[in-house]
């Protein structure tokens, strides 16, 4: 077999296509070629290739998200008797089945947050500042940590399983089997996961926040902090705004949607061999976390602007 020439006409086509800005025409095979190309001679080459790959991934994820959304909306009433049970199964998997773990995390998170806050306040001699406990909990748990942690935990528990299941399905030819039966693989494999994870992350975020607020007060009570439940509740109510409810709901739904998109994209969107599945799973989890953090940063901008 002839040695592969990385600077052949295929490569020329690749660069021409890129320059013309028609990335959509690129095949994944070519993307794979780019990923496996020999080590570059210069840092700029390396950096350029990474940047190019990043652009390709964003493009691929964006396209996949739009396709998935289009299929969900367009086929909402197609094969309901087949798809609905799958949606319930995925919602349970990314939701109710994770409740025990989330209860534990909520308990620990409440203890940790209140413990750290109380220790800091006592060190600075600001014992009177307990009137801000509720406010601190809203800023730390409701606005930031709750949605982000819920998303990362679902990504770790369910997202990883998603990539492996779908990667195996792709590698073993199950996707072709669905297509041969006239079953849309995006409708059958992706739509239930996207819907399940979107609502699963939303519900678990609510439970995590509620659990953490309760366990936080429990720890404060055990520490004999002079704060009654009604005072704590009032502090929380004063700190929360309508915007908080809207942002938390929207943010958790967006987190769930994009975790599902990233994991399904990596499992399904390109031809895979079985041995590539584990590598793809690692990439999907990393990108899932990055996507969550980027989305979180965008929501902070929303707070700053308003």
């Amino acid at each position, binding site marked *: 077999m002839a040695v592969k020439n990385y600077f052949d006409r295929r490569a020329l086509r690749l660069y021409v296509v890129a320059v013309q800005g028609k990335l959509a025409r690129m095949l994944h095979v070519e993307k794979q070629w780019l990923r496996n190309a020999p080590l570059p001679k210069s840092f700029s080459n390396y950096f350029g290739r990474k940047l190019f790959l990043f652009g390709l991934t964003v493009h691929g994820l964006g396209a996949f998200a739009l396709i998935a959304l289009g299929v969900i909306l367009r086929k909402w009433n197609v*094969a*309901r008797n087949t798809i609905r049970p799958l949606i319930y199964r995925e919602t349970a998997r990314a939701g109710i089945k994770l409740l025990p773990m989330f209860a534990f995390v909520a308990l620990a998170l409440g203890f940790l947050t209140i413990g750290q806050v109380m220790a800091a306040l006592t060190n600075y001699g600001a014992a009177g500042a307990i009137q801000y406990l509720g406010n601190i909990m809203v800023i730390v748990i409701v606005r930031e940590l709750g949605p982000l942690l819920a998303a990362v935990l679902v990504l770790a528990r369910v997202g990883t399983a998603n990539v492996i299941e779908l990667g195996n399905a792709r590698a*073993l030819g*199950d996707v*072709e*089997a669905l*297509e*041969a039966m*006239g079953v849309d693989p995006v409708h059958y494999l992706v739509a239930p996961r996207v819907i399940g994870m979107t609502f699963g992350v939303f519900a678990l975020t609510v439970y995590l926040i509620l659990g953490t607020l309760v366990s936080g007060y429990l720890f404060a009570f055990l520490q004999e902090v002079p704060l009654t439940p009604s005072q704590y509740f009032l502090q929380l109510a004063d700190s929360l705004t309508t915007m908080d409810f809207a942002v938390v709901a929207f943010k958790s739904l967006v987190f769930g949607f994009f975790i599902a998109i990233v994991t399904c994209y990596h499992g399904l969107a390109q*031809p895979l061999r079985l041995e590539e599945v584990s590598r793809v799973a690692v990439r999907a989890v990393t990108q899932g976390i990055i996507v969550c953090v980027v989305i979180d940063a965008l929501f902070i901008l929303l707070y700053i602007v308003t």
Partner: protein
Amino acid sequence: MSENQNEIVIEMRDVGVSTMRDLSEIVLEKINWSVARNEFWVVAGQQHSGKSDFLMMTAGLMPPVQGVYKFFGNETHIFDEARLADRLRMGFVFDMAQLFNDMTIAENVALPLQYHRNLPTTEAVKQIQELLEITELKPIADVTPANLPRSWHKRAGLARALTLQPEILLLDNPFGGLDARHSHFWVRFLDELWRGHKLLGARPLTIIATTDDLRPWRNDSRRFALLKDGEFVSLGSWREVSAAQEPVVKELLSAPIEFA
């Protein structure tokens, strides 16, 4: 829908076939072939000769890289959403059956019916009881594929491909890995399907099968083709196959190695 016996259902002109994994890697070129309704074609070739890719392209699972492919007279690139009706005129049996391991055999077989007719699982399973009976899958209907040998997987794959009563049946190496008992069932059952089985309303089926062993297929009523060195060679009837001087054909007809 025309039921003309001489109707050309599949026509290929200078078609090129790539692999599923890499669309730029061409494995077969310049295929000129036509299949009339109710023909039984056996496409033979050694391993890695491109049989599966050829069948995948024929099934519209990937586009031809060159040439023109017509399905029931309509030029076809790939069976997308708009061609769903055409797609369902074809049943596909995979070499490894590709059953879903989280479903029972009955649920696997019923899946196309359940999806396309929007039926609950129990109702769809109820409607395929006759099919399960005929394919002898009833005793294992509630077993998941992971607990069954490959022969039964293939049998379930065949039943699943017949669920929507297709007009054309594509089979990828159906006898691969089967024991004698299963092989006899397949030979008999495919022949019945081709002639017109009551399961399909006695309507004769057009069958295209690939194989790496020609011996079980010997029959004068079948037509044969050969894939070798990236080419598609139409051989004709069994008489012409047995008279062929092709070394590859002789190899595909030779007896298995016998150990002392």
